[in-house]
């Protein structure tokens, strides 16, 4: 490989990375528009549309619904996913591959299909338009991240650690609580953060399951973009972006700290 190809790939690669990251932030200047239409960069800056957003109880309700669905979906997927990841370590590779395939399948089945199937089955059950119904749908999409990331953490544990605890007479539950859990904490934290964000950001399942009662922030933005095209949608998008950003950097920083703390014991 020549120096020329290296320079060319660096130029192309930098442009591609910029193309990946920079456009996302277009919603930020758009949210500071003063006019009732969106222009980037704004001709006159103001916080007018932030006032509209903050004074509208509908947006607050959507934000609250998003948090409630997100927390419930994270709880469901972390509890089920962690148990499954531990169980998967105890079965034969063949069975593990099959079960993992089942767990990962919601990522391969087109989401629109999952959405309409859930919508069809939940409507007569009264789960349509509820926080719980949405959380179930989101858990399906979030579970793979928990199972895989916890699984990776589990495999990085030195089996001698748990064996030592067992040899010293600890019950399986105690071994889990005092040895396994602290060691898989980084993977668990990463998996659950991504589970939360998967739910918090999710659009397609949410559009079909939200109904009138359980509109999350993405559903409300989706409707707003299609009905009115005012900067308040840019404000809502900026809020969604900001919350995600906080969580992303929080996880990256905390993940690094947790990893460096458990590194001497883990492996």
């Amino acid at each position, binding site marked *: 490989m020549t120096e020329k190809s290296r320079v060319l790939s660096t130029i192309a690669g930098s442009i591609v990375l910029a193309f990946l990251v920079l456009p996302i932030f277009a919603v930020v200047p*758009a949210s500071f528009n003063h006019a009732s239409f969106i222009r980037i960069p704004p001709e006159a800056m103001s916080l007018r549309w932030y006032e509209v957003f903050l004074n509208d109880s509908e947006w607050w309700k959507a934000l609250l619904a998003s948090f409630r669905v997100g927390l419930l979906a994270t709880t469901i997927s972390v509890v089920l996913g962690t*148990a499954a990841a531990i169980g998967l370590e105890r079965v034969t590779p063949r069975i593990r591959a099959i079960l993992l395939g089942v767990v990962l399948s919601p990522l391969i089945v087109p989401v629109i299909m999952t959405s309409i199937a859930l919508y069809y089955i939940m409507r007569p059950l009264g789960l349509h338009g509820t926080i719980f119904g949405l959380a179930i749908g989101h858990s399906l999409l979030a579970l793979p991240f928990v*199972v895989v990331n916890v699984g990776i953490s589990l495999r990085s544990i030195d089996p001698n650690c748990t064996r030592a605890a067992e040899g010293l007479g600890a019950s399986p539950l105690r071994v889990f609580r005092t040895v396994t859990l602290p060691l898989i904490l980084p993977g668990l934290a990463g998996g659950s953060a991504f589970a939360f964000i998967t739910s918090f950001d999710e659009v397609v399942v949410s559009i079909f399951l939200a109904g009138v009662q359980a509109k999350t922030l993405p559903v409300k933005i989706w409707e707003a973009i299609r009905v009115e095209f005012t900067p308040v949608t840019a404000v809502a998008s900026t809020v969604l972006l900001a919350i995600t950003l906080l969580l992303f950097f929080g996880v990256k920083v905390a993940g690094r700290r947790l990893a460096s703390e458990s590194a001497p014991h883990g492996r």
Partner: protein
Amino acid sequence: MGEVIAIRQLRISSRATMATAALLAPILLFMGTCFILPLVELLRLSFTGGRGPLWAYREIAESEVYRRVFVNTLLLALNVAIIASLLAYPTAYMLSRLRGWTLSFAFWCLLFPLWISVLVRTFAWILLLERNGPVNRTLSAVGIIDQPLSMLFNSTGVYIGMVHVLLPYALLPIYTAMRNVDDRLLQASDGLGAAPLQTFLRVYLPLTLPGVAAGFLLVFLLALGFFVTPMMLGGMQNLTVAMLIDLFVTERLVWPLAAAASFWLLLIVLLLIASAGRFLNLTQTVAAR
């Protein structure tokens, strides 16, 4: 004596089996009732409607309009996968050469978009590609265009938006393949007198091609079922299968057709996985966040 030990071991192993079953039962129960059961119900629904058991499947396959939607969706997914792979290859090469903080930074750039809602990413493109948006104004200020280009509600917008959203999925497997290339092989090729292009074509490209295949397939699969981006950036003349299914459910209220279209789509997805699934490593993609 030996018998007692054997019985005790049997008891321990059966208790271990019980524990394993107890750990796996909740997720299987959950997936069974909340994922597989609804899909089975959808399958049952696809055979209803009273005009013969397979009428819905036949209607989708035989109607000129629906067939065109499927062909367009396949072409769209194919093109998006090609463009994404072509853009991802040099980028992955750059990443594979980076070390230290520049690598961390580049990796953050790559992973960060995966955390941001597809909705926000797509909405950003509406703002950027508008008639009076920054892209058009920049292009006309530089003098490349006289008239503003219309890039929204047609295929241009859909392509830009979908490549943007799906590119990271192409990049990750290619990057992994490149990281695993042993530099000594390239040096050996150089040492034996191969020209750089020859080394690339005969050593580096074949070694990294499985990664390209994995990235390509993943993008292709995800693009096939895409809903939000084509719905927001495309128009009704760029109907995708996902939009068609939505139309059947929310506007036309013909559930059998929606279900049949879904299963046609799933069949395509499964055929793709059956023919090229060995390249696909979903676990790795899910773990890379």
